[in-house]
């Protein structure tokens, strides 16, 4: 009966064929290929916890009087958005956990995208034919950062309100169109009543949909291009070596999903994030000293702090100081990120060929050095967003800290570049570098003399020269189990598939 239904459906949708194709997709086994999955899984956590939060959140800037569990706010005039977030925290069962889960997941989401991107960059995985997917990935990063900003802004608390104010003035600083653009996006002058509902729709509907669509495209292209892979274990430019999606990789990925979720849930359960009840509602004339944004906006905040107060006067127009760190810097940054694959092949490698075998970072010292220097630059900017916290912690003058960061954001990349470059060259020279070393064991022989011998290979060691099995040669369907339990098959779990 079930077979019959299945066959009927299959006849019409040809699921088996494409399904088999998908199930046989080969995933390289190296752990660094799983970083992107962290982002994917935390996105799923975001969706689920986000749906829960929308059930209770009231996206409105209208003023209400809060009455509830948190005493210091009792009877205070606050916005609906703020009051409902406080209620989620104190009155909804599991609400605080969900809020914290959502927020920690957002932090991990953006963080893992960045790490994933670094992996892709330093191994040259963005090269032809994957340039477009690289650009999609960069877009996803922008959207993730932006949606994170919207997300922590909508509770309308004192800290995020300050952030929105800064965002407004950044938008306003765009020459010629700034004021109109800012008024258009915020629905009037700041602070308006429209901000919260607008941000909300963007945050829960528009941006997630775009992210989902792009994510689909991202993964679709991944399937189409097939994975890139590191050299070794029989990997060539014209094949893919690894485990098939079903059942090997599915088991791995499933476990990974639960572990990622588990890590996020542990954070959510144990460590408090964004305690907006302590911050109070946003009131334009109240400010807290030196509030920071979430870390993924930190580099922008750092840039704002580090930037000296220059203004450029054009005839009839003044470009305010915030324009450079607020608009120009991210604009240039992401343009460079988008164009990097082309910049690299045109100016550095002069290599336009297709690449499916990844570089190790040392293989392309120029790219690695540039990447490290740029990353160091942003890392310094990121650190600069905590100038006040550092100054307070170290009990050094804030001005000194600020100047150290001003100088470091120029000097550190200049130092990092040659060092990274040199290290790459050195690593190329030292063939053993970076290899897992085996222990030496001291043994004593009959005569009483000592010798050192290599220890046993560590368990799970897979000999490098192992030749993978062509997946076409194995009919997975009937034999999946046999394949995966076979003690007589030393190549267990390693398959290859040709690229078209």
């Amino acid at each position, binding site marked *: 009966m079930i077979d019959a239904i299945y066959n009927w459906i299959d006849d019409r949708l040809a699921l088996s064929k494409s399904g088999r194709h998908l199930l046989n997709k080969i995933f390289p086994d190296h*752990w660094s290929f*799983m970083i992107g999955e962290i982002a994917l899984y935390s996105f799923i956590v975001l969706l689920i916890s986000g749906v829960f939060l929308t059930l209770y959140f009231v996206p409105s800037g209208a003023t209400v009087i809060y009455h509830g569990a948190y005493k210091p706010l009792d009877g205070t005039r606050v916005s609906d958005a703020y009051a409902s977030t406080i209620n989620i925290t104190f009155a909804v069962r599991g609400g605080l956990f969900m809020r914290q889960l959502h927020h920690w997941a957002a*932090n991990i989401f953006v963080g893992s995208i960045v790490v994933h991107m670094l992996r892709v960059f330093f191994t040259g995985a963005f090269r032809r034919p994957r340039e477009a997917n690289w650009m999609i990935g960069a877009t996803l990063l922008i959207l993730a950062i932006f949606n994170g900003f919207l997300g922590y802004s909508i509770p309308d608390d004192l800290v995020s309100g300050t952030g929105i104010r800064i965002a407004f003035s950044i938008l306003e600083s765009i020459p010629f169109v700034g004021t109109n653009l800012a008024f258009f996006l915020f629905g009037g002058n700041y602070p308006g009543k429209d901000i919260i509902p607008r941000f909300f729709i963007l945050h829960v509907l528009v941006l997630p949909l775009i992210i989902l669509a792009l994510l689909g495209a991202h993964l679709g292209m991944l399937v189409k291009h097939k994975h890139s892979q590191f050299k*070794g*274990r029989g990997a060539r430019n014209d094949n893919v070596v690894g485990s098939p999606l079903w059942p090997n990789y599915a088991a791995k990925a499933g476990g990974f999903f639960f572990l990622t979720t588990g890590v996020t849930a542990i954070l959510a359960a144990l460590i408090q994030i964004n305690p907006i009840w302590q911050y109070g509602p946003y009131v334009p004339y109240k400010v807290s000293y030196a509030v920071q944004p*979430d870390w993924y906006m930190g580099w922008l905040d750092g840039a704002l702090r580090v930037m000296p107060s220059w203004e450029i006067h054009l005839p009839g127009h003044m470009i305010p100081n915030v324009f450079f760190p607020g608009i120009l810097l991210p604009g240039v940054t992401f343009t460079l990120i988008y164009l990097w694959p082309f910049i690299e092949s045109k100016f550095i490698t002069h290599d336009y060929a297709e690449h499916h075998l990844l570089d190790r970072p040392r293989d392309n010292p120029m790219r690695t050095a540039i990447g490290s220097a740029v990353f160091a630059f942003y890392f310094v900017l990121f650190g600069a967003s905590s100038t006040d916290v550092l100054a307070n912690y170290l009990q050094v*003058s804030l001005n000194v800290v600020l100047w150290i960061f001003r100088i470091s954001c120029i000097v550190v990349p200049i130092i990092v570049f040659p060092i990274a470059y040199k290290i790459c060259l050195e690593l190329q020279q030292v063939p053993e570098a970076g290899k897992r070393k085996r222990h030496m064991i001291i043994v004593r022989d009959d005569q009483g003399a000592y010798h050192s011998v290599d220890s046993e290979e560590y368990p799970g060691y897979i*000999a*490098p020269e192992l030749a993978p099995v062509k997946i076409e040669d194995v009919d997975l369907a009937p034999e999946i189990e046999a394949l995966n339990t076979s003690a007589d098959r030393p190549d267990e779990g390693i398959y290859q598939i040709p690229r078209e």
Partner: protein
Amino acid sequence: MIEAVKQRIKIHFKALLKYDKAARLVIFALAPIFLVQLFVELPAAASVGAHLGRHHSQTTGQITQTAAAGGARTPQLQEGRTLFDENCSSCHGINAAGSKLAPGLRGLGAGVINLWVSSGWMPLANPGAEPARKPALFNSQQTNAISEYVASLSKGGIPILYPDLKGASVEEGFSIFALNCAPCHTITGAGDALSNGLYAPPLHGLTSTQVAEAVRSGPNNMPVFSTGVISKSQLKDLVAYVTKYIEHPDNPGGLGLGGVGPVAEGFIGLFIGVGLCLLVAFWIGDRTEKEEKEDSHSKGNKKSETGVKHA
């Protein structure tokens, strides 16, 4: 074997030697930072000195005027006088009249003395030191004795304040705090570095007396909030909020991270959150190195012979 080890050490050592150019670069690059620090710190130190200088030039004029005005009439004042003479007069002068080292304390009132002594700022270890919070040297009885003694020397100033927190409204207090105090002490009262080498200290571990006295007297760089700005009943509300909710923040969500906010959160999100996930990936993913030519004699060849179909 030993040859091989030697060889390896040599290779690594050579590699290290080649970095020495880079090391020199680092030193050159760091030098300007230290220079800047020197230039920024020196004027700051100088201005502190000037500040002190201003202070005592104001006060020396009064010394003769009110000298020996105060007697020590009660046992408390007696004790206060002894303690003051032993611990404070070396800097603040006999009868708190001020000296070259420190300003006079007359007319400040018992409240100010009480705040400075109970918060551990006074006595200073040496005249050049910055007053920093440390465990108070005296117990509250002794502190009060010193305060009352100094206050008895002249009129005026702020008495020791014992705000009555019964019926105080923390709602009102929160609002006043956000409006008046958060711009320096941050909204969670965690404290922060202000510009020009100033710090707003964290508002943890303070008594209601200290908070009230700080608000009314404005120690050092903190503004004075007189009754015109924060009324008597508002002060109660404020003190209630600070002593209840700033000192014991309501952290139902777990670890409060000291109220530092997004910086600490980001740190944890990145290093613990993403870090743990990466470790997991590292754990369940494959970690074998890529093949190198030398390794090809190992077990690999044997394995590939046993029934593996070659591509």
